[in-house]
């Protein structure tokens, strides 16, 4: 570190720091300033601070721990029986509806399936013919768009969507 050498105007650093000390000092500085993860020294430094000036626990964090370990007396005690009845009713409804015979598929959907677009040659995709030369990219784009339209239409037809 170029700024390190002993400054004769201030109390000298004895003995001269080793490269390892310089690296460790730099790492500690970076960690304390939040620019690097804590190394052992920085972790120790924070532990010292917690020993001398511990911060109070965050109230929300405390409540969360308490709720996790000692659940609040739940509303189940009061509403439990009603919830039980509601659950039983829901089960009964589900069972009764599941016993109904399946609805027949609407004829319209089958009819729509019959109107799917079949694969066409490129020449049938457009009304006006393409120029014989040039504009290759434009031609390819138009073909892609037309095929995509056909595909989309077939998907909607299968889903019964107009």
């Amino acid at each position, binding site marked *: 570190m170029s700024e390190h050498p002993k400054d004769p105007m201030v109390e000298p650093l004895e003995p001269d720091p080793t490269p390892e000390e310089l690296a460790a000092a730099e790492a500690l500085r970076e960690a304390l300033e939040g620019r690097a993860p804590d190394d052992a020294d920085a972790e120790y430094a924070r532990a010292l601070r*917690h020993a001398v000036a511990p911060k109070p626990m965050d109230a929300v964090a405390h409540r969360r721990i308490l709720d996790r370990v000692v659940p*609040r*007396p739940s509303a189940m005690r009061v509403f439990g029986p009603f919830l039980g009845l509601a659950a039983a009713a829901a089960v009964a409804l589900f069972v009764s509806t599941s016993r109904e015979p399946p609805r027949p598929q609407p004829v319209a959907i089958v009819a729509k399936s019959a109107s799917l677009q079949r694969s066409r040659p490129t020449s049938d995709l457009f009304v006006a013919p393409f120029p014989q030369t040039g504009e290759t990219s434009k031609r390819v784009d138009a073909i892609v768009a037309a095929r995509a339209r056909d595909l989309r239409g077939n998907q909607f037809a299968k889903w019964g969507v107009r």
Partner: protein
Amino acid sequence: MEATLPFPMVLPQPFFGVGMLPRVEPRATDLEAERRLVAQAKDGDHKALRVLLEKYGPILFRAVLLPRLGDEARARDALADTYAKVVVTIARYEWHPAGIWPWLRTIAFHVAIDQLRARKRETPFDVDDLTREADEQRDVAGTDVAYLEAQESRRAKEKIHEALERINPRYAQAIRLRVLEERPREEVAEALGATPATFDVILHRAMAALRKALRGDDV
């Protein structure tokens, strides 16, 4: 029947360390209220147990666990473990006239000791320290949370301050200003009459010296 005092009695206590700490005798009414809560909690009343933990939990965290474990996340985990043990063992707890605090702190200390045993990195407090403290401070009791917090955190602070007194004064000042008071690096460097880069090395050496002092090694 004992007469109930209308106010807590403040008794002087010999000075042991940082500041005079008057011992506050718990009021009979406070202890009786606590005894009733404990009886309900022992019977499985979670609401009563929550009242007790809401009162003493923050002190367990701030004055017992955080200073000794040195890390907020670990201290929170330790508090959760402490609560879990309390839930499991409260039914077997026998009421003590000093209140429930000694029992709670003992559980917290044992949880902290287990955590320290599992730690790889060195910390200012080790397992022996906590074992000694768990035994020595059994007379810390009562229902006054401010008193309990002051008593519990006093020992942790004392250990650090005593170790700082044993190392080079310049090193001690570097740690007090930069680490404990969190003053900016440049400001502390100037206070010590050093360049910032020189101060970085001073702080590193100071930390090494303090570690030795806290371990009980010669400095």
